């Protein structure tokens, strides 16, 4: 593990037996896991390059237990790492040696479905797909659809503000969550939002969403559900260059069309996927677009014709419209299998997650090609083209000496490039531990301190998921101090009336 985590508190490690005993009084039976062997499955999340056995694993079943566990840890100064299904790609749920791992998997009930108000109230351990499945009989679904939706949980989606291929049109988690029950590190239980829209005061729900488990533990979530579109069709378009494909994406949006999904793949990704899935992707193109239109048949037919015309004008070499639901799903099967497909052609890979202004795509791809040659590592790209979210997959072999570090450096260089062209470090996977030390590339110390002060408002002792997101941790007392300098000012420099 090459990432430095906060130093373990030896006093906490020394008290381990007493801590386990105290936790067992709060969560009885199998809810406390303390043997090395049984804790093994919890030692990493989706970012498997980093591993750590936690101090102890606790699997509470009720909000009251969560509250009591947190209050106990708060009182005793013990760190806590919350975890949903452990699918984070950025190490957000990486355990701490001296920290309690708080697994929320037993919070797996769907508590209420209210079609009249178009909401579902679910516990955080319910999987993303289970929400859609629970309302499918009435034609509804839950819009955010991260690729891991079969496994990832709503609680984790809230923590990471998860997106998916349809978020250009339907929004990310933050646009689809109406309320939650939240337990603070000190054990206080709060309710934010509900079945109504917008906050009565500060939008704390918006702040919680995407906070990577650093502000509180969510024990219930109210999500919006939507009626499914009447129909959907996809168009598969091949281009002789990524510039042409990018221009086509811009032209589609400029024509006033917001597709349900718009995905791009580069040549290495197309080839890896086609060998794996046989989706019928053209192999003689440099870039491939999947454009999905959804809505009533009349609307989809109308828009498909316009997209085809735009694609032709953008020098597309192939253009296929799905003729059946099976064919549409086959087009997507390739894209959705892109990560495992790349996994087949390389022993290991890192998945990066920068977002860039789309106009910068040709430059970013060209520079990435140069880096690929320089590092001697292959890279394949899949791209949420509508919103500029780029997933370069860096192929490496961890059994080769020094190759992990090389891949990490390559990844860091890509993300710095994303920021340099006006983009950001992460579009949907989160900062976690993986991109933590790159935060200063995007934020000044003043920016990061302002964010940490928000953290202090929720968790004044800094016990909840420390070591994630922020590269340097400050004590809240230190951050709270005011240093007012100067103050001579604005008179007469500022116009005054």
């Amino acid at each position, binding site marked *: 593990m090459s990432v430095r985590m906060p130093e373990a508190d030896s006093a906490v490690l020394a008290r381990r037996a007493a801590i386990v005993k105290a936790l067992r009084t709060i969560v009885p039976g199998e809810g406390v896991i303390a043997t090395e062997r049984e804790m093994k499955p919890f030692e990493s999340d989706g970012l498997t390059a980093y591993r750590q056995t936690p101090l102890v694993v606790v699997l509470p079943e009720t909000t009251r237990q969560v509250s009591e566990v947190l209050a106990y840890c708060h009182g005793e100064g013990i760190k806590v790492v919350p975890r949903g299904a452990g699918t984070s790609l950025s190490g957000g749920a990486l355990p701490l040696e001296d920290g309690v791992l708080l697994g929320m998997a037993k919070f797996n009930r769907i508590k209420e479905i209210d079609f*009249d*108000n*178009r909401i579902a109230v679910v516990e955080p351990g319910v999987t993303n797909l289970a929400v859609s499945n629970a309302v499918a009989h009435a034609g509804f679904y839950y819009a955010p659809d991260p690729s891991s939706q079969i496994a990832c949980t709503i609680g984790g989606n809230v923590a*990471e*503000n998860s*997106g998916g291929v349809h*978020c*250009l049109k339907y*929004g*990310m988690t*933050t646009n689809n969550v109406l309320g939650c029950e939240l337990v*603070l590190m000190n054990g206080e*239980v*709060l309710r934010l939002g509900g*079945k*109504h*829209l*917008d906050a*009565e*005061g*500060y*939008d*704390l*729900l918006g*702040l919680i969403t*995407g*906070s990577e488990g650093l502000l509180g533990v969510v024990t219930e979530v109210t999500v919006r559900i939507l*009626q499914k579109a009447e129909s959907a069709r996809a168009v598969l378009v091949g281009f002789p260059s990524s510039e042409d494909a990018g221009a086509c994406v*811009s032209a589609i*949006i*400029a024509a006033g*069309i917001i597709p349900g999904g718009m995905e791009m793949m580069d040549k290495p990704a197309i080839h890896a996927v086609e060998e794996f899935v046989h989706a019928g992707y053209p192999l003689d193109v440099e870039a491939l677009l999947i454009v999905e239109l959804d*809505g009533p048949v*009349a*609307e989809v*037919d109308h828009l498909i014709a316009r997209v085809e015309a735009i694609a032709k004008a953008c020098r597309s070499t192939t253009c296929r419209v799905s003729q059946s639901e099976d064919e549409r799903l086959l087009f997507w099967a390739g894209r959705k299998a892109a990560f495992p497909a790349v996994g087949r052609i390389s022993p290991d890979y890192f998945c990066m997650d920068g*977002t860039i202004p789309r106009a910068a795509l040709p430059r970013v791809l060209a520079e990435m090609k140069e880096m690929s040659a320089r590092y001697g590592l292959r890279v394949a790209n899949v791209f949420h083209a509508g*919103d*500029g979210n780029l997933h370069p997959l860096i192929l490496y072999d961890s059994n080769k000496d020094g190759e992990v570090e090389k891949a990490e450096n390559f990844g860091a260089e890509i993300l710095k490039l994303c920021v340099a062209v*006006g983009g*950001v470090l992460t*579009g*949907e996977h*989160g900062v976690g531990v993986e991109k933590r030390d790159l935060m200063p590339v995007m934020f000044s110390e003043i*920016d990061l301190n*302002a964010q940490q*002060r*928000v953290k*202090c*408002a*929720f968790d004044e002792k800094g016990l909840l998921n420390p070591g994630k997101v922020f590269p340097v941790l400050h004590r809240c007392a230190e951050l*709270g101090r*005011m240093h007012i300098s100067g*103050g001579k*000012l*604005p008179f007469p*420099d*500022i116009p*005054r*009336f």
Partner: protein
Amino acid sequence: MPDILKPRDAKEVEDAVRWALSHDKALEVAGHGTKRAIGRPSQTDITLDLSGLTGITLYEPAELVLSARAGTPLADIETLLEKNNQELAFEPMDYGPLLGGEAGQGTIGGVIAANLAGPRRIKAGAARDHFLGVTAVTGRADTIKSGGRVVKNVTGYDMCKVLAGSWGTLAAMTDVTIKVLPRAETQATVLVEGLDDARACAAMAAAMGSSCDVSAAAHLPDHVASYFDGLPNAEAATALRLEGVAPSVKHRKEVLAALMKPFGKVALLDEKESRALWRSVRQVKPFASEASRQRPLWRISTAPARGHEVAAAITPAAQMFYDWAGGLIWVAMPYGDEPDAASIREAVASVGGHATLVRASASVRASADVFQPQEPALAALSKRVKDAFDPKGVLNPGRMAAGV
């Protein structure tokens, strides 16, 4: 009269806040001041007038993004977007006429600070949902940035969300980046006439739960129907808007009309009437007239299918109508100096949601809770968030609640 500080750039905003900090002065943060009369009355020494920070600094229609200085007039932004067949999808409403001011004023910073939205809130979200990036000066005189110019971004906390709807109490925004979207090619409205409130909420729930992709749903009871534009008569009207490309609107209009038939008499509004109607809904037209402006005005957000239950618990002497499929209720109280906060809040409490007293005299606003009071633990957390940004209370202190 309080003094006014009018910075010319972001650096001068920082200087002004630093000066206020060191001289123990409180600042009223304002753009055009169109929403000045919302909130607890100002307890500030000097106005920090941000209307000098103007200019659209970036507009990339194909990337659906626009950046502007916070004091840029909303009208300038909407005009530019319209030229490119784009718009702010959240349809920010205009408080100006409701509060006795002119229509069409206001800055983009004010739109965000008040988290404005219009009828399309139920489909497209509010300002919060379109607010991508910010540079702002906190009450510590720190210039901070958050977010970016890309739509998809989870790098660090989403500070944009907490600034949206914070009414200038956390930071003075200097630059903002927002998501823009294509304007729908055309629109139409399906009307169901003569429904009572409960039946109307059920009809709106059925419409919203259909695959017709309804982009706005309002119920205009008969006592206010005549104030709205575009309606064929003064009967109660339940209005459902459809937007999109022409073949799609045509198809959905037919499907929705059939779906609504069991609820009551169905009528259709063409594009022109539909636009006129929704403009008047967006601007809360019945309660903007000079006579109506004497009435205290409440804005209630609640569970949409139960909006009528909240309304039923309010005095029948009040005037009201529903937007957001029943989830937003505008209530004009009958008597000038009596907002009757206790009964309104009780009505909301029975269903869940919140009520904001958006119009009342300064003396009433000084004594009543303008924003929904919070549970003690939540109020304490809100106060700690305020302190994280503005520990000395130099920015709009007390506007949302005592100490916040």
